[in-house]
């Protein structure tokens, strides 16, 4: 049963991240996702200090605000202070992460948080924190419920805003011309990324969030030219990686998040080499075929 809950948790995170990641990599903003996933740390610590508990809602709010603040700061440094784009990302997230670690040390006695938990989470603990009804009936792990709600929200967001997100990603000028606010959808997308990061942080950690945001969409990007297909493949790759990653971790007796990230990397490598349309090896074969 534990295996089921862990794989389900991984798959839910994979679904949210892989969907959002498709937009991020097409907007060349993969590293913004990386930045957000690290920069939410001070938000989590502050929420923890204010409420004194690990309740989900205050943490979601605290970290969500920090996520949007990160995006805003990156934009601000880049647009108003004209800091080079990549430097703006680098400066912002390391600064916020440093603040987060310092806050943890200041309140070391009171905060039950540490950095490795932020970096690679502990998905293996997910099945331990169960919701038990008054009748004593187990409703399944708390994290799974949180993630299910977040996945639902992300799904609705993409379904409702599909046209707007699509246009602002591929043709911002046209989107603006027909009256879609690119700024609004930019911040909505970033808000969704923050929400996902925060909801997944406790269970899978920043590193798997980044892996899911980048690797499955990049894999799908090498396999298709159709955006809807890309979304589908991306989610499928994410879920398959969760399942295989879990068993890899069991086999090696190591971190599940690390193992899942490894498998997403392998998936990308396979697509990179063997994609029928764009794989390195297939391309060589095609060239030969044409040569004959």
């Amino acid at each position, binding site marked *: 049963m534990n295996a089921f809950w862990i794989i389900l948790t991984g798959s839910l995170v994979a679904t949210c991240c892989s969907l959002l990641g498709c937009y991020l*990599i097409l907007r*060349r903003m*993969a*590293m913004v*996702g*990386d930045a957000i996933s*690290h920069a939410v740390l001070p938000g989590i610590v502050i929420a923890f200090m204010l409420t004194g508990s690990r309740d989900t809602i205050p943490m979601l709010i605290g970290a969500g605000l920090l996520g949007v603040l990160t995006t805003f700061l990156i934009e601000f440094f880049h647009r*108003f*202070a*004209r*800091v*080079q784009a*990549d*430097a*703006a*990302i*680098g*400066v912002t997230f*390391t*600064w916020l*992460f*440093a*603040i987060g*670690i*310092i806050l943890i*040390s*200041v309140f*070391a006695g009171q905060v039950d948080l540490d*950095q*490795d938990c932020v*970096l*690679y989470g502990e998905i293996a603990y997910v099945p331990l924190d169960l919701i038990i009804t008054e009748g004593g009936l187990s409703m399944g792990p708390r994290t799974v419920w949180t993630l299910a709600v977040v996945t639902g929200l992300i799904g609705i967001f993409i379904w409702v805003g599909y046209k707007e997100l699509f246009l602002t990603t591929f043709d911002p000028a046209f989107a603006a011309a027909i009256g879609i606010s690119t700024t609004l959808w930019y911040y909505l997308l970033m808000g969704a990324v923050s929400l996902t990061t925060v909801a997944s942080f406790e269970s899978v950690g920043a*590193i*798997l969030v*980044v*892996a899911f*945001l*980048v*690797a499955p*969409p*990049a894999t799908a*990007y*090498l396999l298709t030219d159709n955006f809807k297909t890309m979304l589908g493949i991306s989610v499928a790759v994410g879920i398959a990686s969760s399942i295989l990653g879990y068993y*890899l*971790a069991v086999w*090696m*007796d*190591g*971190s599940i*998040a*690390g*193992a*899942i*990230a*490894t498998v*997403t*990397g392998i998936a*990308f490598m396979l697509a*990179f080499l063997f994609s029928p349309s764009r794989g*390195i090896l297939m391309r060589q074969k095609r060239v030969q075929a044409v040569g004959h």
Partner: protein
Amino acid sequence: MQDFLEFFSFADANIRYVTLGSVLLAASSAVVGCFTLLRKRALVGDAVAHAVLPGVCLAFILSGTKNPLILLIGAFVTGWLSLVVIDYITSRSRIKEDTAIGLVLSVFFGIGILLLTSIQQSGNAAQSGLDKFLFGNAASLIGEDLIIFSVVAVLLLVSVIFFYKELTLLCFDQAYARTIGFPVRGLELLLTTLTVFAVVVGIQAVGVVLMAAMLITPAAAARFWTENLKVMLVLAALMGAFSGVAGAFVSYTAPSMPTGPWIVLIVSMIAILSFALAPGRGWIARILRRRRNKTRILEENLLKLLYQLGELRQDYGNARSIEELLERRNIPKKEALSGLQKLKRQGYLKKEDKRWLLTTEGEKRGRRVVRLHRLWELYLTQYVNLASDHVHEDAETIEHIITPELEQKLLEELNYPDLDPHHARIP
């Protein structure tokens, strides 16, 4: 104060090690960071920092010891490999660089975490301390570390000084470097190697996530104070060194404080202040400059307007009401009034019962703007072959910019003309 004196007397060997280590690390990675920043590849440092972990673990698994040199070699190999993979993915597929960086970063780090946890679970007692590579621990620097730090720092600085010209060319004009026969690929490899060196060493002090800041932040801050690369390198090194000392000092006075994050926090504050306050490129300086330009354009437009009205009616000595002015040119009334007031204070205008009159100075300045406008129109029609009805807009902008030297050149070039393309006299 007591703490301050105690700290800066450096009597305690531990203080010496931590401070010196932090300074060496921060300064040398800042110097290397300048080049990666200028090549617009600031974030590769982040990828290398994450990619170091699997190398450390593999080196431990293969050698079975925690010999720092062997671990460093392992770290170096995977760090270097990560950059090669990023380059390979971006050049051989349609994956963009940011995606490739994020991909390599998370996958390499995931492999590292998998190996690390696997080692920890294996019950091998020798493994404890491997996670120093994960979070860094500057406060525990010892003499042995310091020797490695110094060697690497000197190596980095010497290579940068020795290959200064080549690296500069690589950052600013790769195509030219290739044309004159520089081994561009070799130089790229050199810069990659330097970056990996800086990361591999620095990571033990500040940890995986914050290592990126040691490369990027001082360089980004220094960039705001100068246009000269040499000055930028020195500034970045100084900023790095200062935050190294300050971070060590903070963790000395409050022993529960981690050194690495404080170094990063301090250098980030320096950077953010630089973004805001640096003269020339800074945010505030730019706002002020924009406002100054706007006022100047408004003033010159008002003077031009008064001059043109005088020219039209051949009565420069008569005063005009604000309505007369705004009839000819659409300026928001409030702005126009405040501009007129300011011009009066500067002695370009006089006010006679709510009407405005040019002083001699004002007439001179107004005439100059009109002259520049018409000269430019003439220049565009004669030399760029634009139709005479297309040149007005352009001249509206350039009339505020042309310097006296350019004006002289235009006059000579156009052979001291009398009439502009619209047959108005050039004053």
